[in-house]
């Protein structure tokens, strides 16, 4: 399955609404992200923080081959999948950590761009639930949140990827954030 053409086809199908293809694409991206994150965090010598962007880029390279970082503007179809996979990885790691009686430092995943938003105290299941809800309510807002939270993309990058203005991104981001805050505060 490491054939690039195959993965691209998969993604296209997924984008078109094929749930099996989506699952498979997600699984591959997830495996790649998880593998890289584990490897990095398992290395005692390394800094225990990762860059979300770097992580996603590396996973992309692993799944799609090549040597170039993805140009998100031309790879929109990938973004959603990557962000979703990244989210799974983070949530997964946070859950494990929260569930452990005595969390080990090594289990801690620190992602530089987004650690402020997603720190240990956040209730992940509630967050994921809210995000899913937001996605049914306003797809674009949910995409923006995902790109920002889980991939650490800047407003400019998101604007380029979604072909909207930066100010729209910012506006939507603030609305979405306020909405999430309201929902989480319940």
């Amino acid at each position, binding site marked *: 399955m490491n054939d690039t053409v195959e993965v691209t086809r998969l993604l296209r199908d997924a984008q078109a609404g094929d749930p099996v293809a989506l699952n498979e694409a997600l699984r591959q991206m997830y495996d790649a992200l998880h593998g890289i994150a584990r490897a990095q965090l398992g290395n005692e010598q390394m800094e225990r*923080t990762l860059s979300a962007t770097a992580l996603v880029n590396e996973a992309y390279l692993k799944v799609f081959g090549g040597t170039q970082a993805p140009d998100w503007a031309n790879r929109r179809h990938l973004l959603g999948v990557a962000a979703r996979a990244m989210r799974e990885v983070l949530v997964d790691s946070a859950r494990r950590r929260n569930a452990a009686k005595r969390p080990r430092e090594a289990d801690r995943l*620190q992602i*530089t*761009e987004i*650690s*402020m*938003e*997603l*720190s*240990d*105290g*956040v*209730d992940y299941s*509630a*967050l994921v639930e809210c995000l899913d*809800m937001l996605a049914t*309510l*306003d797809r674009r807002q949910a995409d923006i949140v995902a790109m920002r939270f889980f991939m650490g993309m800047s407003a400019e990058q998101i604007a380029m990827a979604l072909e909207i203005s930066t100010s729209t991104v910012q*506006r939507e981001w*603030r*609305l979405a*954030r*306020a*909405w*999430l*805050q*309201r*929902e*989480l*505060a*319940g």
Partner: protein
Amino acid sequence: MNEERRLRYLRAKPIALAALDLAEAEREPYVVACCRGDEDMRDEVRWMLEAAEATVGCASLPRLAAATDVVGSLISAAGSSGYHILRRLGEGGGGVVYLAERTLGEGTPDELRQRVAIKFLHTGGISGCEPLRRFTEERRILATLNHPNIAHLIDGGTTSDGRSFLALEYVQGERIDRWCERHELPLRERVALFLKVCAAVHYAHQHLVIHRDLKPGNILVTDEGEPKLLDFGIARLLDHVGGVAATQTQTDMRSLTLAYASPEQLHGRPLGTGADVWSLGVVLYQLVCGLRPFGDSDEASPMSLTQAIDTGKLLPPSKRLRKSGATSLWHEVPADIDAIVMKALRRDPCERYAGVDALAADLQRYLAARPVRARQGAAWYHLRLFVRRHAVGASAAALVLALLVSFAVQRMQQMRRLELERDKTAAIAGFLQNLFENADPTHAHGSQVTVREVLDRGAATLMSQRDIPAPVRVSLLLSMGRSYNQLGLGGQAIPPLQEARKLQASYDADVLERGQVLAALGRAYSTVINLSAAIPLDQEAMKLLAQAPGDHADEILRVRINLLYNELGGSNETAASIAHEVRQVLAQLDARRQPDRELHLQAEAVLAMAQGAMDDDAGAIASARQALHEAQRLYVQDDPALVYYRFVLALVSMRQDPAGSVQLFRRAIADYDRQVGSVGPGMSGLLTYFGVALHQLGSLPDARDALERSAKLAQSFAHESPDFQLYTLTGLARVYMDMGRSADAAALLQPQLAQLERRARDGSPWARENRANALVVLGEAALVHDDAASAMRNFSAALAQMGTSGPRELPDAWGRTLAGLGEAALLDGHPGQAAQWLAQLTDFNRASKAAPASRGVADAARLDARLRQARSGTGRAAATATGQASATPPRESCRGPAPAAAAVDSSSTPCHDAPLMVAEQATAGTGAKH
């Protein structure tokens, strides 16, 4: 989420988005029209508009735990103390505030319940080592604010579930404006009350802390009528917690209360003391006329309020009062007060009062009916040049620099009185400009330039900048030196302070400033454990401070405590006389109405060590516990100061509770490592005394590890602190000896002989003792290798070094020297001489009432046995036995009154970094009691 809410959100969004494209004034009518009387919908749209426009705060999701109600729960910090949350007090200043109760020493007779205000911060936990250290460093500066009118920062850190919090002194009081109204306070009394506020703010400014959010809500008046300032420096602290989020959203406004914010604050420019002067101006305005200058009625929205502060017309209080037609207690506000308020409220910070003290001075003049400066026109406005030039982003660096600017400006004013030429102004401006350019975030790591980095740059620049007039350089150097000391970086403080001292000789520096420079220098030397250098500086500083006009009682006392501490280790003063003096200091402090708590506990710690040195274990432990107890109330939980007090307790409790003491040591070292880092004199000091203590307990490998680590560290500051390095090396050599590694011991000390001699020749008792001990080790090592000549040479030198006071002052080294000389004589084939040394040793043991199991008695017995054997013709076997005997360590081998190597910071932060002391002295006699 129910369908109704869902639909409402979906319908509200297009309305909100359309409204956002309209001009501010048109929005509300549009929204009202669109919602057609549906109030819920209108609220939803308004909520969205607010959210979309929010440039402030909440860059992150709310932490769920903070969103839920925590009342009634028990919060425990990562450290030890727990807080019981009682009720919610309010929200503001970047977090929710709860009233909580902390219990200290639970279950013990001196159990203490303390009410505190706990503030949970609206941010993620602090992750990563660097931010944590920076946060700790900032908090440490805040914790040094110790003023009766400032609510003290008690604790802070991260709870065990990862939330950041601060614990502050809980103040029961009423907002200053309401309090004044309720008591119908006359104008003059309001001014007098306000002056107390000014004094507190000025105090903080001198400690490099600005408030940034002064407003009546942060100034409470207690039932006793004393004002208390809350949240000092919290805004700045939040910058550090905010970390990534703050820089990403480019906002620093957070929870700023707009009505009291200065124009420079609204624009996100670097802030100096001028920002607090402005806010105080607004508060004063309100106190004298009952109305706020901005935002009382006309400018309701943030936008119009910002405009009003920035460019709007500002009426003097008297006119505002008349215009509003409000009935007031006074018919009018005096013109002097008008002038003072307006001068504090100049939009250009350079045109305002140069500092809060200047504002206060003018108010004093008003009360004393003397002409106020504010009405004399502005003579030095061209100094705005200073502030204009630093267009670097607002960061910790900019803050410190802005403070330095205001020091420089004040200094310039004094200099203008001295009629110094104008081009010197330009010179300072150039210096500051240089600093700002160097503070370019791209050169350092990110925008978070630390105070430390700015200080390093500033000091380096100031040292070489010759074109700034000497008096200005001196005051800048002094501020920097003190800041270094406060951060426990004595080694860094020494060069700038020495430079300041040198410069002072070039002009007619006043007595006070000379005393202050010397005091700071003395403290710097203490922190790098160079006691003999610190002592004369302290003495001279005390003399000068006493001569200086004005009341400097606290400052003098601080130096005196530092001096006593240094003397404990670096002079011939007896522990008893030092203890006596410390008790006097404590009595003096206790007699005051509001004693400086920090001074009190520092004195308590010195007392503990003096008592330890006098073999008064019970007294020493009680004093050390008391000091630690007081320190826990005064300092935040992970303040390195606590490490020092734990260390003191560990030292004095070694004899009574060796295992507990080792545990305390371990904890102190781990804490220090985490909070400050594992390099520098502080860590080295901890390790050396820990190693010596372990040696006495007989854990040789652990002792060796600690001392080897420390020796490595001590090398880096050996230049500032030679005696400490030699002490560490000698201690390590003794451990090697007891491990049977006599060759290593000799190899370690042999290269130091010249330095040992140099130090001993003109040095302190500590230096002389180091040499005596080193010579004894070398002599004993020579005996192991059957080198009678070398042994004889070293022991004889040791004997000469100790001189006639040896038996009294260094009984351990003395006894070992006598025994060693006997062994050497025997080895050399002179049993007659050996017998003479044995006789001396026996006399000495008797005179010093050595216990039967002590080292001296054992040595004598062994020598006696071997002497008999030698005389009966089995000399060779005896010599071999000697070697074996030397290699087996008697446990009490360390007995000996090593000097107190004390390094207390008795200025504002007590010796976090060189928490050392009299390890041996405190534990002297261990052997005798075993």
